[in-house]
């Protein structure tokens, strides 16, 4: 496809134990991520879309090594991250940074902007204090903020500005991959656009790859080259961004596109919303997890689990659904 992937995730799985009772024994598990395989190529954006509880944030955290995976492999710049010691893994993790949804929660309110942005440099013992301060100024300039704000605190900024500070911090160690977990969903539309444009510019200038996690399929379609759709801990469809919008194959992907109210009253859609809610990850449904809500459910879907299958020659569209078997 495009040479060697920067990041390859193979068959990743994570269950969180639930302890109950007098003896605090593990009684049940939350199946957060099951059998997920993805690749991200250099200078590429992979979009990860799904509703709350689909496991998309857990997947981001697993890749970041913030949580340990139960099974599967994470290969980043040719290193099997989850087999390295914590100290060794940190060497490679430098090249992987994260941006969070709520820039107020993810910036320490007692630290100045300088302290926030230079902390990653300090931890990795890069430069002296003066050099780091200069670097911080450069980073602020890169993300479109004034350089003279270094001594201010996060609460003195608006949501969009705070997200820019979060991005500056993520850029401090010149990462090759940024995992962005709902970076624009707390922002107003006009501010969203500013942040998305900034992220595109940074990608062009520094050749960064993004794993862009969001619940808004239009934002994902806009920013991503390829899109993976997650439902209840599994990837149900993965395709080129344009292809996915043109011909979404999985009934869930179709529902995601159709559910969004279109901003023009003339184009009123006669759309029947899919019924029901996302099932519990503690007792995921048998067979295809979407069968409880699927408008085209068949007998087979209730018993067998559909595997991700390649649909076209160039292997760019994969779907896990018996309708396309």
């Amino acid at each position, binding site marked *: 496809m495009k040479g060697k992937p920067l990041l390859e995730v193979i068959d990743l799985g994570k269950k969180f134990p639930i302890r109950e009772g007098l003896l605090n024994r593990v009684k049940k598990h939350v199946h957060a991520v099951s059998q997920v395989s993805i690749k991200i190529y250099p200078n590429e954006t992979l979009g990860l879309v799904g*509703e*709350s509880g689909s496991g998309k944030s857990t997947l981001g955290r697993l890749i970041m090594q913030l949580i340990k995976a139960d099974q599967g492999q994470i290969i980043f710049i040719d290193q099997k991250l989850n087999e390295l010691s914590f100290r060794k893994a940190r060497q490679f993790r430098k090249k992987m940074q994260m941006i969070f949804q709520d820039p107020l929660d993810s910036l320490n309110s007692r630290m100045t902007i300088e302290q926030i942005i230079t902390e990653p440099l300090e931890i990795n013992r890069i430069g002296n204090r003066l050099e780091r301060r200069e670097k911080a100024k450069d980073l602020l300039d890169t993300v479109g903020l004034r350089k003279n704000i270094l001594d201010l605190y996060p609460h003195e900024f*608006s*949501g*969009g500005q705070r997200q820019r500070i979060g991005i500056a911090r993520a850029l401090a160690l010149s990462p090759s991959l940024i995992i962005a977990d709902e970076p624009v969903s707390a922002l*107003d*539309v*006009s501010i*969203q*656009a*500013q942040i*998305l*444009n900034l992220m*595109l510019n940074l990608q062009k200038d520094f050749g960064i790859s993004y794993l862009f996690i969001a*619940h*808004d*399929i*239009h*934002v994902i*379609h*806009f920013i991503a080259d390829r899109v993976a759709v997650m439902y209840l801990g599994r990837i149900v469809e993965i395709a080129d961004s344009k292809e996915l919008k043109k011909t979404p194959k999985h009934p869930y992907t179709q*529902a*995601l596109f*159709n*559910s*969004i*109210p*279109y*901003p*023009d*009253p*003339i184009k*009123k*859609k006669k*759309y029947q*919303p*899919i*019924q029901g*809610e*996302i099932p519990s990850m503690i007792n995921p449904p048998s067979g295809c997890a979407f069968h409880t*809500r699927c408008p085209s459910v068949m007998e087979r879907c209730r018993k067998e689990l559909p595997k991700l299958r390649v649909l076209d020659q160039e292997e760019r569209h994969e779907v896990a659904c018996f309708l396309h078997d």
Partner: protein
Amino acid sequence: MLDSLKNSPLLQVKNLTTSFFIQGRPVKVIEDVSFEIMRGETLGIIGESGCGKTVTSLSVMRLIPKGLGEIQAGSVSLREREISSLPIDEFRKIRGRDIAMIFQDPMTSLNPVLSIGDQIKETLRNHNRYDSKEAVKMTEELLIEVGISDSRSRLGNYPHQLSGGMKQRVMIAIALALRPSILIADEPTTALDVTIQAQILQLLKRLKEEHQMSMLMITHDLGVVAQTCDKVLVMYAGKVVESSFVNDLFGNPMHPYTLGLMKSILSIMEPENHRLYTIEGLVPELGEHKKGCSFSNRCLYKQNRCMEETPELRVVCNGHQVACHYPVMDEKKGVR
């Protein structure tokens, strides 16, 4: 008599102005907000965070916390009866019975230590409509009406046992309990997933039609406005900057801010090139008093006059009102 009622607005808000006290000094949060809602009609108020849309609804409901702020001017009439100056005890009878409200975050607006059955019954009983037995029966019926199927077993559930979508359904059931003629919905689907949002919007639409309810829909989402509203107010920095029928607004957005919002959302939904339309700059801070139009620092069409004179809301055509010295009239600049 009936005819005159039909043609007069159900709810009329005139020149509503509310201030919050910031460091002891009143700062106007909304200024001169006026609108009318007819029977069976849905009016949308759209704007970004901090534009005053929620304060408008809280002012109508007289829910502005004492000490934090107060309504400084304006009137609210329900069926041609002035209600904003009623003693609060009198007004309480109207709140819930005639005008009900649902909020954005059903997680925090339900009482965590009362079962949902008790919370619905509380509303029914507080207004002395039903005795205890009747109230239980009504509660079950309400839950069925909002799409909670196993209603009897759900009565004893507590809010934490329900999903976000379910909680919003319970909120709607509470709001509907006294068959209000107006429902104020403040960002009712913002905290919900898109597939659940679609379900709740469909539910609200059905209930509105069945009960011939009027609705005030407060949202930041142009899609929600387009698909649910008859008329729209666009708010910016505490003021109404544009007001019209929903078709006219989307057909010819006249205020540069409205146009900018539409272009931003459409450039995400229907991207033509890999570039997003943005409205540069930021919303002015509360109480930041400046001469001229409050949008002028971000406006692409501004001229000298915009920095000097504050534009008044005026009718341009067919009831389409705009507060702009140089409204966008060229259809080609529109979004369709």
